[in-house]
C-alpha cells in the first residue's frame, strides 16, 4: 500500500503543489493529469525517492520510504520520460543490461522472445540509434515484462507509441494490477483500464 500525506513540492522558488494526499491499495491505479509544468514528473520522482518532499511524507506499507532505503528499490520500477536506452547498444543488450540493473538477470533467449512480444522481432540485434522513437520506447517498455516489482511508476508512458503498442502497454498494466500490483501513471491520454480501483489526480498549474 502506498500512502501520501500532505505532500508539498517546491522547485526553485515555485510551489508546484501542496497538501497532496492519496492512498493506493494493491491492484489500484492512479492516473496523474495536469498541464505541463504542474509537477507530474516531480511527484513521480518523489514517489521514487529521487526527490525529497518539501513537506509531508510518503509511506510504503506504513513505513517512510526514506527509512526503507534500498529495500524500497526492490519493490518499484520507474520508467522515466528519459528512457535510459543507450543508442550504441542493441535492443537486446539494452534489455539485458537494464534488467540486470533492476536485479533480474536474463540471457539472450528470453530477451529475444520478450522483444518479439513488444513487436521488435528481427530488430533485436540492431543498434537502437537505428530504431524509430516509438520503437525505442518499446525497448524501454520491455523492462516491464521482465521485472516482478509491486509498484510501477510510469512517466508519459504512451508518448510516440502507435495504437498496437498502446494496447500492449494497457494489457501489461492490467495484468500487473490483477496480480495485486500498483501503478502510478502520468499521461495526457484517456486511459481505459479494467482496474478494480481507478483514481485520477489532477494537478493544477
Amino acid at each position, binding site marked *: 500500500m502506498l500512502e501520501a500525506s500532505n505532500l508539498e513540492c517546491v522547485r526553485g522558488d515555485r510551489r508546484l503543489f501542496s497538501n497532496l494526499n492519496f492512498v493506493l491499495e494493491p491492484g489500484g491505479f492512479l492516473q496523474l493529469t495536469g498541464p505541463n509544468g504542474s509537477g507530474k514528473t516531480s511527484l513521480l520522482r518523489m514517489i521514487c525517492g529521487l526527490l525529497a518532499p518539501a513537506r509531508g511524507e510518503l509511506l510504503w506499507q506504513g513505513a517512510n520510504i526514506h527509512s526503507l532505503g534500498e529495500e524500497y528499490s526492490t519493490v518499484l520500477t520507474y520508467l522515466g520520460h528519459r528512457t535510459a536506452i543507450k543508442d550504441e547498444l542493441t535492443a537486446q*543488450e539494452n534489455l539485458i543490461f537494464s534488467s540486470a540493473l533492476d536485479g533480474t538477470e536474463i540471457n539472450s533467449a528470453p530477451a529475444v522472445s520478450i522483444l518479439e512480444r513488444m513487436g521488435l522481432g528481427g530488430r533485436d540485434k540492431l543498434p537502437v540509434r537505428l530504431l524509430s522513437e516509438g520503437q525505442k520506447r518499446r525497448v524501454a517498455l520491455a523492462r516491464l515484462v521482465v521485472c516482478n516489482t509491486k509498484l510501477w511508476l510510469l512517466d508519459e508512458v504512451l508518448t510516440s507509441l502507435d495504437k498496437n503498442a498502446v494496447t500492449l502497454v494497457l494489457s501489461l498494466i492490467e495484468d500487473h494490477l490483477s496480480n495485486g500490483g500498483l501503478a502510478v501513471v502520468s499521461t495526457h491520454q484517456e486511459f481505459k483500464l479494467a482496474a478494480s480501483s481507478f483514481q485520477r489526480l489532477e494537478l493544477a498549474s
Partner: protein
Amino acid sequence: MSASSTLSMFRWMVQRDLTLAWRRRADVMSTLFFFVIVVSLFPLSVGPETQLLRSMAPGVVWVAALLASMLSLGRLFANDYQDGTLEQMLLTPQPLYLIVMAKVFAAWLVSGVPLALISPILGVQFGLSQDTLLVLAISLFVGTPVLALIGSIGAALTLGLRGGGVLIAILVLPLYIPVLIFGAGAVDASIIGISAQANLSLLGAVLALALVFSPWATSAALRISLE
C-alpha cells in the same frame, strides 16, 4: 543483499561500460593520443640534451597523465545522466557505492591502463634507463586509479552544469597534487639511483584512501545532482 548479487551487479556494470567504450572507441583513443602527443612534444622542443630531458621526464609524463585523465572525466556520468540511466542506477536495489566503483573501474581500464602500458615507450624518448621505465609504468598503474577515483567526485559534482569541464579542472586538479608529487617523486628517485619504494608506498596509501572515501563522496554528489 547477498554477496553474489552484489558481485554480479559489479560485473554487469563493468561489462556494460566496457561495451559502450568499445562502441565509442574514438573517445578512448583520443585520450591516449593526447597523452602520447603531449609527452612527445617536450623532447622535440627541448632538443637532444639527455641530462635535461632525463630530469624533466617524471614531471612531464605525470602532468600529461593528469591532463589526459581530466579529458575523459566529463564523460564519466554525463551520458548516463542525459539519457536517464543514472536515475535508474540510483533506484537499483544495490548500493550506489558499488555502481560508482564499477563505473570508475571500467573508466580506469579504458583510460588509465593504456597510459601506464604505453608510458615505457614514451619514456625512451627521454633517455630513461630500463629500471626507471619500469618504475614509471608502476607509478602510473598505482596512480591512475587514484586520478579516476578523485576525478569521479568532480564529475559527479559538476553534473548538468554549463561549463562543467573547466569547473571540473578547478575542483579536481588541486586534489591531484599528492598523486603528482608521489608519482613523479618515485620516478625521480629511480633516476638518481635511490629506491622508489617509499614514494610508491605512499602512492599506494593514497590509493587505499581514495578507494574507501571517493566512491562514497561521489555517490553523495550524484544524489544531490539528481534532485
